[in-house]
């Protein structure tokens, strides 16, 4: 572990000032501390955000949707009966994320900004492309858990369960820095590493995520989250699907389908969603949309099964919205 300084400010402005100076944000630490311990992350200064009032908890304002503070522990969202009524997909996505202990400590912001799980990335001794090296070791290596679609130089997959679920709810994020605040679509937070951009997230230097917002309109949609794992608990998704739609007289409107575990970003294809508009979400429509979603998939040596799995999960998720 490298040496670092540690500060725990009480005021957001103080945290933002430190971030501007190049410090790294620390929330629950469930991801960052491991990365530091394994020598993959080497921050010089850490700003612990957990002492800041006002970044924790969620609220609903009629007509304005739901606002979730970035420092809210995952467990708070998962166990809230009230939120489960408003936005059941969030509970579904968190129920199988990590473990109860990690959900007690891990936060919403940390979950969205966690680093990927590629085992070459997490091995200090492997100088892979994403870490500034010259090549991706997964392309011709052990690739069971890597991307099948949407990858450029780097084939890692976006590991968060919460991200696809929230994107299926059209979530936005509030981003704060010492220069001010901005809003962006949550989907735009995730970027596939490519060219000069050797990172997974689109935050700029000195910025933090202050909150996630789910618009009122999304609350009217039905949603579901399916996650395939290699054991029954405590594992990352090999493939997951978040789907939501408004069902009117047996027909689907405003459909969203977002895949986790298959691409460097939560994977969404507008054409697939459009294709489902107005259908009864019957098997044929669902499978056709799945094919559009996975069109152009180029699996690596070990992960072709993800395509089959994703196709079936998409069908099941959409079917369950109809049923």
């Amino acid at each position, binding site marked *: 572990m490298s040496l670092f300084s540690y500060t725990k400010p009480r005021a957001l402005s103080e945290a933002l000032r430190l971030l501007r100076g190049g410090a790294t944000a620390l929330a629950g630490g469930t991801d960052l501390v491991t990365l530091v311990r394994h020598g993959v992350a080497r921050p010089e200064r850490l700003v612990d955000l957990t002492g800041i009032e006002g970044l924790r908890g969620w609220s609903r304002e009629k007509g304005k949707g739901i606002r979730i503070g970035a420092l809210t522990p995952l467990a708070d969202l998962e166990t809230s009966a009230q939120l489960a009524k408003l936005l059941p997909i969030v509970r579904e996505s968190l129920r199988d994320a990590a473990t109860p202990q990690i959900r007690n400590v891990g936060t919403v912001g940390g979950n969205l900004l966690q680093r990927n799980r590629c085992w*070459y990335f997490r091995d200090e001794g492997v100088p892979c492309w994403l870490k500034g090296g010259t090549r991706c070791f997964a392309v011709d290596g052990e690739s069971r858990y890597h991307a099948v679609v949407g990858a450029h130089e780097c084939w890692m997959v976006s590991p968060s369960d919460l991200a696809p679920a929230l994107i299926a709810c059209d979530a936005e994020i509030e981003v704060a820095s010492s220069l001010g605040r901005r809003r962006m679509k949550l989907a735009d937070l995730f970027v596939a590493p490519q060219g000069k951009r050797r990172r997974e997230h689109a935050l700029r230097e000195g910025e933090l995520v202050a909150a996630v917002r789910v618009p009122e309109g999304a609350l009217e949609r039905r949603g579901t989250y399916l*996650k*395939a794992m290699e054991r*029954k608990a405590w594992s990352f998704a*090999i493939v997951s699907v978040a789907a939501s739609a408004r069902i009117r007289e047996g027909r689907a409107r405003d459909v969203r389908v977002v895949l986790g575990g298959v691409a460097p970003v939560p994977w969404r294809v507008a054409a697939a969603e459009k294709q489902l508009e107005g259908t009864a979400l019957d098997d044929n429509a669902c499978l056709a949309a799945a094919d559009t979603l996975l069109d152009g998939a180029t699996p690596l040596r070990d992960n072709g099964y993800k395509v089959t799995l994703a196709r079936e999960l998409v069908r099941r998720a959409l079917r369950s919205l109809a049923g």
Partner: protein
Amino acid sequence: MTVAARPRLRGVVGESAPRSDAPPKTQGAFAYASDLAREGMLHGATLRSPHPRARIARIDVEAARALPGVAAVLTAADLPTKVKFGLMKLDQLPLADGRVRYAGEPVAIVAAEDPERAREAVRAVRVEYEVLPAVTDPVAALHPDAPRLHDDGNVIEDVRVVHGDPDARADVVVEDEYEVAMQDQAPLGPEAGLAIPDPDGGVTLHVATQWLHEDLRQIAACLGLPERKVRLVLAGVGGAFGAREDVTLQIHVCLLALATRRPVRIVYGREESFHGHVHRHAARLWYAHGATRDGDLVFVRASIVLDGGGYASSSSAVVANAACFGAGPYRVPNALIHAVGAYTNNPPAGAMRGFGAVQSCFAYEAQMDRLAAALGMDPVALRGRNALRDGDRIVTGQAVEGSAPVADLIRRCAALPPPAPPPGLIAGEVDLTALPGGVGNVTRGEGVRRGTALAVGFKNACYSHAFDDFSTARVRLVRERGEPVAYVLTAAAEVGQGIVGVCEQIARTELGVQRVVVETPDTSIGSAGSSSASRQTWMTGGAVLAACREVKAELARRAEAHDRVRRTPRDGEPVDVDLAPLLDPPIERTVTHRHRPTEPRDATTQNAGHVAFLFAAHRATVDVDVETGIVKVVQVATSQDVGKAINPLAVVGQLEGGIAQGLGLAVMEEVRLQGGLMRNASFTDYLLPTTLDMPPVVCDLVEHPHPDAPYGAKGVGEPPTISSTPAIVAAIRAATGRELNRVPVRPDDIVFGTAARSGWRMRPGADPRTAVRM
């Protein structure tokens, strides 16, 4: 003389008595080895090779030594001797000298004032490696022109079993290739030890291990110290399963303590634990089974290659087991089995629960199902028909004495209560934990198919092939506050299996005293052998029993002398004489117990090489989501011949725990290697079954006492891991129709049904060195 009306003894043999180490362990009060501490101690850390095969050109430790707070930096140049260590073959230096043979091999060790500085010092050691191409395919390693990884070649062990007519012909023959991936023992407690230098120039080591005396032998030799100057004390062991049979940090921590003249502690983290200890051998197996049209086995032929990795560890005995038990618990008149253990540049493999019997059982049980299909027979009936009976010979020519209730186990296991029917496509609330997939409801019942299958397996108890297998126990009966108390000292390691409870129950039963104190094992007494090979109840239990009987005899003599004898106590009853005056001075007896000798192995392995055999049958029921390939094991039912259950609850614990490990190997556990490098050295990436993956287990304990064993109690620890894996995989085959010739079975194996192929052509039974690339 007074005869007290005593309450009946609690916790005697045959009772599910609570064991004294259980409450502190469950309450978090138990001191594990990683909790060891001494005032003023230093913290040790290890630099390991990042390359699976390399020459070390130069090591520069100056920068590391110059760091503040660093007390010692040691490399091969600082070793007091050039003596090598190893469990069966001395082939590894404590620190690599000139060559590294696997990624993770220790190259330098440091001691510093705190763990951070120790790690910093490790980083500061500069090593120049000349990287060499790694040999990672064990079959290729056996090829005559493969690079030599050790001076004496790449064959660690070569075992041939030739029985009856090796060229026998049969009406029906089935043949296939099988693969078993590398499994980790994954004990929850990582390796840890504390070494304290002694004023006499020796050292005392507190360590979590399976075998104190074997550690001592290897440590003393490598330190260049006489054995009496090295003392070992057992520290709290957080699980072992074979991973603690080899030396890991023992020599390192002693070297550092002697070099710094200060106490030094080394504690591995999880990742280092994966690199630090040996694993279960990955295996390639080629099998052919022949039978008559009526379903009588005619022959079994097999070629088996076990990947021993960079150093030998216990590979030779694992190879022998894979071969000796390679035909299964069946009557097989003709057999030809050739098993070889190969040096490679993969991480070393050694002991793990089931010890060689696991790999071959996966293959021969799959073969039995194939054979049944080829014959159009019910697979359970085929097994019953060929099951070993008392007095039958296994393929090594040894007759099974005591008991061989194989057919009985198969019949009983098949008849155990089945699980509830599959949830099916039910509207409304479904228990999602009962279905394949996470609780994240991948399926609500659609696409789920059920399969059930049975498998049976066996292996030896205790050490084999003329090894001098013994255990020593000292029993001291004293009077404390008017009460008789028995103190039991052995060197047997409690690794979680319950030997402490076994000793307590035996001493209570034999001596008729309620209070029994099992003392912390150390090397002040003779060896107890390893807590492995399902042997401690038999060996150390036997030693305690014998010592107790000597104490009892002395007690009877003293009582007679005092004319106090009422009657000799019967087992399980309190002694009904007032012991107090008879225990001054206390009675102390030390007894060494041996099992009857076994024969050494000859060229065709036709000898009585084993002392006894352990049998179990498992029936597994699985639900498979066939479209996604996700499996839920619904139930495992087992009938196991335990001889006698000294503590039925503890036996059930062994059965359930062993089945959990068998399930892990069946569907998820695999150390993933690429070019000799481990990709998943963490509990996030190396998947172990959780409680949600573990199904209910139906246990049927069959008690056929073995005449040689204490109370007839055979060992119970290993059989649960042997046939549970093939039973689960067979159940998945039954549900999916897929071939599944490799464990662990992965979702894609089910979805695509691709079979594992080594790329080597091998005629089953032939010398694995003659394999030809396809």
